[in-house]
Every structure is written in structure tokens, then in C-alpha cells.
């Protein structure tokens, strides 16, 4: 049973047809990379899974989008609960104007968790999972803005982990970071895969090939090709995919 699945997913921004009949499956505990030229709809597709596109007026969505075999756009779905199940990490690190501790605790608090020891345990655990604990253990009450960009991004990952999601969406999580921080994040993705299903958007082909098990190539709102990363990067079926991967356009 696939963890995430879309069947003929379409999305319109007003009149603009941004996603065209996308059908794709993602298995549990795998990393799927979404690649493609700018504006092809990767972020839009990613944001289907936690219903982030709902926030934009005049979007229209059709088709089936399933997480754990449940249609997440059906009426009886609670969006807040869905978002707890499907965590997200954004392109630019975007910590809240709060302390490091409160950043990670935020998701628990807004979802009604009151137990102090539970919150503390969970925050520490998430920071460890995000490989940030050693660097921040002595400054839990400092503002999150005092961290470096790479640390901030890992903080955002810890923040997403704290609410115990089973899926993590990452939209170009390393694009604003230096090579060392990027390497750390990639390492992290490897670790996290054991527990989570990860979907990552990236413009970095090496990164895609390093971290992902499966890759989907998007072009002008269409899913051109989808398959095992090893296969896509060595012998793609489609000419466009090959051109893109080898850097001949994009």
C-alpha cells in the first residue's frame, strides 16, 4: 500500500493550469525527489499533500490525493490533523521569532499538548534527530535568529519532527545553505528515511541522485517521467528528462 498516491491530480490557479493529470505513488520509508525547471509545478505538487494550496484564493483542485489511502480533500478530513501527519520544511529557513525551545515546542503547543515533561522530552528528541542538539543544548532560551542559516534549517526540521509526522515534505531545503550545511542536511535525510516518508523538491541533480530512491521529473505542469532514481539518472526513457538531467536545458 502506497503511503502517498495521487490519481489524475489537477490544479488551477484561476485560469492557469499548473498541474496536469499527475498520477504518482510514493511508498513508505522512501525518499522521492521532484525535479524539473523553475515554474514547472514541483512546489505546487508538493503542497498538495498538506493542503497548503488551500491558502491561495482561486485555486481549484481535482483528482484524488491520498495519504494512507485516505482522500485528504474529502469533506470529513481535518486539515490541522492532516498537517500534523504531513510535516513540511521550506526553502528558506523560517524560524519563528521565539526561542529555540519554543520553536520546536510550537507544533505541540498549538495542538493542545500541555504536559511539560512530554513537551521537553519531545523537543530534545527532535533536536537530536535533526542533529542539532549538540550545537544548541546550552542555549535553548536564545532567540532562534541567533543561529546560522544551516542551523536554522535543521531547527525547522526538528520543528517539523516534533509533532511526530509520518511524512515530511521538503521544498528545496538546502538551496539557501552552504555546502557543509547542505551535506549535513543530506545526511539527515538518510537517517530520517528509516522512520519517515520523504518527498523533496530540489534543483540540485547531484543531491537528487544522492538522497532519493525515486525521482519524478516535472515539465510545464506535467509529470514527464517517474521511477527509481538510479534508472532515471542513468537511462531515462524520455528525451526531455535526459536533456534536463544532463543540463542541456532548464
Amino acid at each position, binding site marked *: 500500500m502506497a503511503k502517498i498516491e495521487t490519481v489524475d491530480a489537477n490544479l488551477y490557479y484561476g485560469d492557469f493550469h499548473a498541474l496536469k493529470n499527475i498520477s504518482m505513488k510514493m511508498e513508505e520509508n522512501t525518499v522521492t525527489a521532484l525535479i524539473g525547471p523553475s515554474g514547472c509545478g514541483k512546489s505546487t505538487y508538493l503542497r498538495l499533500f*498538506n493542503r*497548503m494550496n488551500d*491558502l491561495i*484564493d482561486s485555486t481549484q483542485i481535482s483528482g484524488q490525493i491520498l495519504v494512507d489511502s485516505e482522500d485528504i480533500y474529502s469533506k470529513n478530513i481535518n486539515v*490541522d*490533523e492532516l*498537517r*500534523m501527519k504531513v*510535516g*513540511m520544511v*521550506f*526553502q*528558506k529557513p*523560517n524560524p*519563528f*521569532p*521565539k526561542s529555540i525551545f519554543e520553536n520546536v515546542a*510550537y*507544533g505541540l503547543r*498549538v*495542538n493542545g499538548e500541555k504536559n511539560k515533561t512530554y513537551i521537553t522530552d519531545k523537543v530534545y528528541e527532535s533536536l537530536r534527530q535533526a542533529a542539532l542538539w549538540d550545537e544548541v543544548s546550552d542555549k535553548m532560551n536564545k532567540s532562534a*535568529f541567533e543561529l546560522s542559516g544551516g542551523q536554522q534549517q535543521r531547527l*525547522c526540521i526538528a*520543528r*517539523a519532527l516534533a*509533532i511526530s509526522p509520518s511524512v515530511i515534505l521538503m521544498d528545496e531545503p538546502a538551496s539557501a545553505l552552504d555546502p557543509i550545511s547542505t551535506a549535513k542536511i543530506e545526511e539527515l535525510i538518510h537517517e530520517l528515511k528509516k522512520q519517515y516518508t520523504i518527498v523533496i523538491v530540489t534543483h540540485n541533480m547531484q543531491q537528487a541522485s544522492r538522497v532519493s530512491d525515486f525521482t519524478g521529473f516535472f515539465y510545464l505542469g506535467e509529470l514527464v517521467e517517474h521511477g527509481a532514481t538510479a534508472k532515471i539518472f542513468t537511462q531515462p526513457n524520455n528525451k526531455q528528462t535526459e536533456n534536463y538531467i544532463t543540463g542541456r536545458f532548464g
Partner: protein
Amino acid sequence: MAKPFHKKLFEKIIEGILTLSGSITSLAVILIVIFLFKEGLGLFNQSPIAKGFVLVVNKNNPVNTLDAKSIKNIFDHEITNWKKVGGERDTIILFYLDDINSIYTEEQIGQNLENLPTLFSNLTDSISGIIAFIPKTYINSDFKGKVITTDNIKVSKFLSGKEWFPTAEPAAQVGILPLILGTLWVSIGAILLSLPLGLAVSIYLAEIAHPRVRNTFKPIIELLAGIPSVVYGFFGLVVIVPLIQSVFNLPVGETALAGSIILAIMALPTIITIAEDSIRTTPRSMKEASLALGASRWQTIYKIVIPYSISGITAAAILGIGRAIGETMAVLMVTGNAASIPHSFLEPVRTIPATIAAELGESSQGGMHYQALFILGSILFVITLIVNLTVEYISSKQKLAKR
């Protein structure tokens, strides 16, 4: 390609003109400071006794100086014995210039009032408890009484004095505490009303309302800002004042509350515009991050958006107060203008700007009253300067933090 000389000169001249224009606001501010203080500062070299008059007492009276307050109390019959002001036990007998006619006949006074100095001299000499308020010109060198000296108006007395009777005789009372408190009451009342309302509207417009709704609301709020303050005052006078009078069953409806309500309405556009701008600077990604963690929109607003834009919201509140403190006409028309220390919102009060507007026309140029009003203006100026600098400081800090 070299430019001809006259063209270069032309450019230089234009540049000079532009530079001059650029400095116009600084020049204006400096001029305002100079002229306000130039007209006002003389106040503190003035005696509160009406110009050209003196107060005289019997030469055996041990009292040498009296302050403005005691003089007023004496002439208001509130102090009736010299003991109260440091003299001997003796009843105070008031004497005004006009009283001369009831004591002496026209013959005795003389056709050209030539006997007046002697008569005054004799009077003060013969009545031990007398205090006479007479023109200086009638005091001769052989005058047998004693002229009372009065301290000049002091800054501390001016600020803390509880009585504002700048045209009172024999001694003017220029204590501005009632005016300061009146201004504060009205302004604080206004901000208490308009801040919650303004914040709610700015949050609604920035975060909740559909863009279409926002686009219709914004021009309406701009319009609210464009209505002249006399029109607000007039509306307050004919609608809000009678309403307050009947709701609270008051003798008059012109109260601090009426002023606060009108000011609150007038401060709304300032607060809404600035707070909304600041709320809208919250990065979209930060809001999305909150929503992606399962927070509701409302949780996102009060846990992320408001803390993030708090400095802008503070600036909005401060500017709103600044506007309220300086507003003149509307307040003048609805607050009843009683220069007494307010005890509740349902009493008439008088604010600093309203005082200036109402009284400057009747004060004579260069006189004490006139100077006092200019000092009031200077105080307003300083207050708004502080308000502006605070806002400037807050927003520069905000810019730094968000870099």
C-alpha cells in the same frame, strides 16, 4: 563630449535649488522651535500681577511677599486673616481702585484725580489690615504703605499649578496641571477605545478578509482620514454629546468621554493603516510554517503574526496617541472646556490644544496670557517630537531586526 559651460552652470544652479528645497523641512522645524520659545519663554520673567498695578499693604504689616495663589485666595475671600499668610492676627480688608469713590467725594479726589496718591497713602497708613490693588502710577515717593513683592512665575509652579485663570486679577493663575490632565484623560480614553478596534480591523484586513473585501474597506478608511476635524467635532456636538447627556443622565453632555469617542474615531485610520502595513510584513513563509505544523489561522495570527509585527503595532499605538494629544478643533467642540482637574470621564475637561485655540484670540500680544499659550504650544511640540522620535527608534530597530 564636453558640455557647454552655461549648461553645466545651469545644472549646478538647479542642484543648489534642490538642495535648498531639501533642507526646507529642517529649516521649518528649527524656525518653529525658535518662534514658539521666543514668544513663550518671557513668561518666566513675569510677575503674575496685572501689568501696571501693584499690591500695597500697611507698612506695619510683616508680610512682604505673597505668591499668586495666596493673592487669589485673599481676593476671593478664601483667606480672610493675615495670620494665614504669615502675618499677625488681623482681618484682611480688600481695597480696589473703584472703592475710592465710596469713601471719598469727588471733591476730595480732585477734578484731575490729582489727590489720589495722597488719599491712597493715607488709607494704607490708617487701615492696618488693608491690601490694596491699585495702579502703579499712584504710588509716590512719600507713599506711606508698603508694596508687596511677588515672585515671578516659576516653571515648577506652572507645571504643577492646579488653577488656570490666566486673566484673573489681581494675580493671574497659570497652573496647567488641569490642562495636562485633561489632555491625558481624553487621549488615553481615545486610545483605549480605538486601539482594540483599530487592531481588530487591521488584523481583519491584513489576514482574514478576502482581497475583495479589503479593497473596498481600504478606501473607506482613507476617507475616514480625510474628513476634516471640524466636521467630526460638529458631528460629536450634535450627535454624541446629546447621546451621552441622555444615556448617563448628565447636566451637560460635553464631557471627556465625548472627546475620547470623537478622537478614537479620528485616530482609527492612523492606527489601522500603520498596524496593517506592519502586520503585512510578516513573511508568508513564516505563516505557512505555522499552518504546516497544524496551527489554526487564528493561532498563527496571535502566536506568530502579532509577535512578529509587535513593534509596528506599538508604533501605531504611539502615533495614535500623538494624533489624539494634538487634535484641536473636534476636542474643543465637544469636551466642554472646563479647566478643572477631571475626576471622571463624565465631566467636562479642557485640553492643551483646545485652550490655545479658544484663548489665543483674546490674549494680547506679548502679554502673560499670550506667553503662557505659546508655552503650551511648545509643550505640545515637545510631546509630538518625543512621540515621533520614539516611533522612529522603534521602526529603525525593527528594520535592523528584520534584516
